């Protein structure tokens, strides 16, 4: 599958107009200087040859060198990985912690005020663009209340406090759509479980409601929740691109936008390939996690 991705990405980029050599040369460069740079980058060779060279490198685990930043794409991705990874992890964590209990409670009291509010919120969560939400949160929590920094990223190595303070706003922004998604699925799955016979049996045995809800109903909702987290990774990556731009976080999302604007082909190819790999791996991990989440599944 990744081979398909590789071909698609390469075709997509290289058939497009735009010349990385021109922007590297600067404002006063002449056409001859630009042509020289093109040759230096190997961009004057036939496309098939360029693809062969690139694919050969990729297969040996090498993503090539960025035209624009002039360092190895793998190094570049390594430098930008921490912020994106931290942001994505915190977002998922936050979303699961908020949405699973809410979704379960909403199902437990189906049709109650919490249920209505949650369903209303989930439709709204899908409808408000990430950046509008980001600006609202920045305005409220950073500018008006002055609680949190407006931008930037602090490395974990610089202290956990600063790290979290910088990440709370972006992660909250990004988690809204995720909360909407997971809450819906949790609600539906718990609702289905609550209608099953064994729940009725458990209740008839006189088990406390909370125990019924958590141990029996929620446990059965684990597989659909895990599945939706996997599907949501694609949305999350999209959200990361936008969120990193608004909060000035030097992660992979920013890198993608910068690389596209600079026509930095090796970097764009590398980043997309990397994200695709993450997507595939996460979904593989989730498939494997079914074994733990649902005792009936055996591989």
């Amino acid at each position: 599958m990744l081979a398909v991705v590789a071909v698609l990405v390469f075709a997509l980029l290289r058939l497009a107009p735009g010349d990385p050599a021109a922007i590297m040369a600067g404002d006063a460069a002449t056409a001859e200087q630009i042509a020289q740079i093109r040759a230096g980058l190997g961009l004057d060779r036939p496309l098939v040859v360029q693809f062969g060279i690139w694919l050969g490198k990729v297969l040996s685990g090498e993503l090539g060198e960025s035209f624009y930043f002039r360092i190895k794409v793998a190094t570049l991705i390594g430098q930008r990985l921490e912020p994106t990874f931290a942001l994505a992890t915190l977002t998922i964590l936050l979303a699961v912690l908020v949405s699973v209990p809410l979704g379960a409670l909403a199902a437990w009291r189906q049709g109650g005020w919490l249920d209505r509010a949650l369903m209303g919120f989930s439709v709204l969560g899908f409808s408000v663009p990430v950046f509008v939400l980001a600006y609202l949160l920045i305005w409220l929590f950073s500018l008006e209340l002055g609680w949190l920094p407006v931008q930037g990223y602090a490395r974990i190595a610089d202290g956990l406090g600063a790290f979290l303070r910088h990440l709370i706003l972006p992660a909250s922004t990004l988690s809204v759509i995720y909360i909407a998604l997971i809450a819906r699925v949790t609600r539906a799955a718990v609702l289905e479980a609550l209608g099953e016979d064994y729940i009725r049996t458990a209740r008839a045995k006189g088990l406390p409601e909370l125990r019924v809800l958590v141990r029996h109903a929620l446990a059965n909702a684990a597989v659909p929740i895990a599945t939706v987290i996997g599907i949501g990774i694609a949305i999350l990556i999209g959200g990361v691109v936008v969120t990193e731009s608004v909060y000035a976080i030097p992660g992979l999302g920013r890198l993608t936008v910068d690389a596209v604007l600079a026509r930095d082909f090796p970097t764009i190819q590398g980043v997309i390939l990397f994200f695709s790999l993450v997507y595939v791996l996460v979904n593989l991990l989730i498939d494997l996690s079914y074994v733990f989440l649902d005792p009936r599944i055996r591989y």
Partner: protein
Amino acid sequence: MRRLIFAAAALAAVCTAAAQESVLRVVPHSNLNILDPIWTTQYMARNHGYMVYDTLFGTDEKNRIQPQMVEKWSESPDHRLWTFTLRPGLAFHDGKPVTGEDVVASLERWGKRDAMGQKLMTFVERMDAPGANTFRIFLREACGFVLEALGKPSSNVPFVMPKRVAETPADKQIDDATGSGPYIFVKEEFKPGDRAVYVKNTRYVPRKEPPSGTAGGKHVYVDRVEWNLALRDAQAQVNALQRGEVDILEQPAFESYPPLQADKNIQVVNSNPLGFQYMCRFNHLYPPFNNQKVRQAALAAMAEEPFLRAQVGIKQFYRTCPSMFTCGTPYGSPKGSDIQSKSNMRKAQELVKSSGYDGTPVVLMKPTDLAAIQKLPDVAAQLLRQAGFKVDLQAMDWNTVVTRRAKRDPPAQGGWNMFCTAWVAPDIWNPLANPAVSALGEKSWFGWPSDAELEKLRDQFARETNEAKKKALAEAIQARAFEIGTHVPLGEYVNPLAARKNISGFVTGPGNLYWNIKKN
């Protein structure tokens, strides 16, 4: 136990040292990705150059050339042999002294890339370094701009690099940022698109004179300068400065000034009083702008004021300037500008009618990701349409603009008719530096005007050593350039920096210079 206490004490000492270390947190005007200020003309590479390298001469606030690394120099009576002596105490970051050989190698590499350097090299017979701290330039014939070239304040600046670095072929980028300048580049901490870090060069010996432009003593009062390359959203930049998360914004968006000026913790400082000039460039190869009369009509339609008002908007930050060279500098003169400066829309409409313009649409390229120039094409389109032109305004990112403007293809096949840009004053303030008045056809800057008379005048200017005669020649060059319509100058503007109030000691120059700055 004792060892533990010692370690704790040492740790505490390190911590206090870290706490006292003063760090200047700067938001530069753009991204830094190329670390070779000779290979590219990008202004970010130039500013990086001023951090880590030193120059032979500098240009002071009054635009006079002053010695910087050079202590003294002499000129033979026939103006053909120039001998320079370096001042004592110059050393590269690796500890090795700066020698005449380093200088010669650096000048040779610069002379292959820079436009003014290339021009200088046509006069140069050879260069050598007879002593450790001397170098000589032998000329074939007298040349009027030796010191101007060596003290050139903007791209490409003839920075002095170690010989081993300067021997890199001119068409390859250097990898080694070792210089002899006031700051040392921390390669391990450089993350492109994230941040670049410079630390104080404690070995640097500043000149005795007070700092002035790129001349004078380069004293460093902070331990560390961090360029934040990730913070690019204009509103986020303002927020960050207001909250004290950064110290300096190099070029705030024009829309950002009202809130910045209203904040009592923030100062707006103009460290580049000569500022920038806007221009729109014609493509002389294809219709409609291959016709001199049509170019004249466009010049008449494009008055400077509407551009400045829309793009800059803040009255005290812009001024109209009838010169193609910077107003307020030696060659800034209104000569020949009447076609544009004393015109109006009705006259432009008549000129369009009488020019034989056949309705060919003007393909006008608009960059969408450069806030400092992106409104110019909208204004140009509006004015040209009012004058009777058909305009095809095409939006694209700046990368595509620079790609397309290098193409000599017809506009319908991926070429273009007009684009707009901005130049910092020293890049356009004389007929040799200004790339837009070169008229060597396909060897010229994008747009490729061709005019033997203009070239003859520029050549005379290059050879002239008498200042009064140079001024007269510059006026003649400008008059001819307006007559043939090389490009449309659109007035001048400044883009002052914004900083926290506890920052002081800004140095005036064409770019943002970080010596002499104090943080309290």
